[in-house]
């Protein structure tokens, strides 16, 4: 029989068990969200598709928004796909620990798995929306070039940023429920402060530095550059975003791990 040492440290979970639990919770989320709905995962593409239609009408037809020569619907959709991944993850991730109150207060497991699973479950939506994006590219007869090789980097940045924000908001929301409404309002405004419906080049120079402080700017602009326009992203913008994202992620992990032992007490 194995001899166990007395310890006052939290129990260690093997890496394999950790990832399998993350997978299982992700599956639970996906299945819980789409079971007993007729349209199923189709809802994952309906959201960006509907927004694309509205943006096309408002910004392109009525507002004469430039789209750099690309078809405006494609231009908007390429940014709406990552945007909705981000905003849906943050929205459900923020309240996830409170939603999982039942297991958080009754069993020990690494708490970050809960918001991580929320982000993970939105990857399924992201994949579905990306497939639709590929169809739209074909429909508009826009070809891809070698710059598409950079897509994984931007997706990684997108996921890391989403994780950073979700870990932060989910941890604080355990203590202060105000976070959830603040996040909801914030996300609505954030959509318009990110170059989703318009290109960064349309932003007046004096506001440009503020837009660069938004890590999503580099991600969205970069994805659009390599996918829709098949050209190099603006490296200056991308590197600022990447630095901000890494910094935020480190800070968010530190915040989460320093507060998570109190979750069960206050949740």
């Amino acid at each position: 029989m194995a001899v166990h040492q007395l310890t006052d440290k939290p129990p260690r979970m093997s890496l394999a068990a950790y990832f399998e639990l993350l997978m299982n919770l992700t599956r639970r989320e996906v299945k819980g969200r789409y079971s007993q709905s007729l349209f199923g995962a189709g809802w994952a593409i309906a959201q960006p598709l509907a927004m694309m239609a509205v943006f096309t009408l408002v910004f392109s037809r009525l507002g004469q928004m430039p789209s750099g020569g690309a078809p405006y619907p494609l231009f908007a959709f390429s940014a709406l796909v990552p945007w909705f991944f981000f905003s849906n993850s943050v929205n459900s991730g923020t309240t996830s620990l409170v939603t999982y109150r039942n297991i958080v207060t009754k069993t020990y497991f690494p708490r970050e798995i809960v918001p991580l699973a929320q982000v993970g479950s939105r990857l399924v939506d992201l994949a579905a929306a990306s497939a639709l994006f590929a169809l739209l590219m074909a429909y508009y007869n826009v070809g891809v070039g070698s710059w598409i090789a950079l897509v994984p980097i931007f997706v990684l940045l997108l996921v890391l940023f989403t994780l950073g924000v979700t870990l932060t908001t989910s941890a604080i929301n355990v203590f202060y429920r105000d976070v959830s409404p603040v996040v909801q309002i914030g996300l609505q405004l954030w959509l318009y402060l990110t170059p989703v419906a318009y290109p960064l080049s349309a932003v007046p120079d004096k506001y440009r530095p503020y837009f660069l402080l938004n890590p999503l700017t580099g991600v969205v602009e970069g994805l659009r550059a390599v996918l829709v326009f098949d050209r190099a992203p603006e490296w200056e913008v991308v590197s600022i975003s990447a630095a901000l994202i890494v910094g935020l992620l480190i800070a968010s992990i530190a915040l989460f791990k320093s507060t998570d032992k109190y979750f069960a007490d206050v949740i």
Partner: protein
Amino acid sequence: MSIAIQLEHASKRYRTGRSRTFVDLVASSFDGLRGKSTDVHSATRGKIDSTIHALRDVSFEVPEGAGLGIIGRNGAGKTTLLKLISRVTWPTSGKVRVAGHVVSLIELGAGFHPELTGRENVYLGAGLFGLTRKAIDRQFDAIVEFADVERLIDTPMKRYSSGLYARLGFSVAIHSNPDIVLVDEVLSVGDASFRRRALEALRGLIANGKTVLFISHDMWNVRRLCSQILWMEEGQVRAYGEAGEIAERYMNEVNLQALANQGTSLQSHRGGTGEVRFEAVETFNGAGAATSLFTSDDTLVVRGAYTASKAVQGPVFQVAIVDVDTGVIVTTASSAGRQDPGVVVGPGEIEVRFTSLPLRARQYILRLSITDAHQLASYDTITAGPRFAVTGQGGGVDSLADEQDGLVNLPFDVVHRTGRARAGSRI
């Protein structure tokens, strides 16, 4: 023998009061700037919040392979104790050390999702206890077999009954390769046969050198499973020691308190037409002293004073002993056919003597009634009369085998013969 669990001056304070809002955050930051102490537990001003001590300076050790019962009243800190040991929460001060893999059954199937099938939930639930897919694969058949859910394993769990849900939750927990198992009052769900099997399984774990902590209000289950008992009271350790001794002290105190708290007045709303009413009912022992505590050798005397507001021909007085938990009537003593009181009017007294009490050690309620001579019309009915308790005989754990469950002690002998049976029907 090595130590499985060790608490050193562990205390746990909780904030009570409203949930915190952003206003509180600003306020507490302001307090912090002014030098008032703030911490993550008390970020509010004024009297909005107060802290409660769920545990105060608790120290004890549990050796590996022990079965430890944790008893105490609601709010004594029993569940907080388990949460500290399972790392769901952390002590405000002091140390909590554990050795090995802890599995908590604070709520059965807490990690299950109703939309997932039983199979998927087994992997999810065991994963929450830290098992890998491979390890679960090895245990899967045993889990399903123990829970007895073969037929429904690929059905979403929302179709399960609550008993089945709990069974699968229990099965996953005990098959999650635990070194320490924490059980919190979870055996109250499920049917009797499952409870029996669950207790057997927990016993098996102890026999295999696992440590089991068991919270229950059911003293019988505690004593069947546990050799040691930890008695918690108001967040502190009241007593810790040999199960039989602690259980008896605890039961005597619980009984005494409950009996001391009972009002002397009889319940005001009661049945019956009221021609004859009990005025007072008291219990005495054989020596004539008023008491509520009896051993099974004692004589129980129930004395009821009554008043008949008008002349009544041959009323029948009945005294029944009712078990507090199950409501089973153990005994009914009736004056019918024994002594005809004739016509009663004005005050009188009836006395019923039980010359021995072959009852299990627990609390009982007296039920009294007065009916007419034909026992058709009721003059008075007291459904919850005075309580009394039968206390244990001080036998240790060893005398508490399964067959000592139940309500009554019937005197019996056992004769064993070898060879062919001499009498009786063959099966």
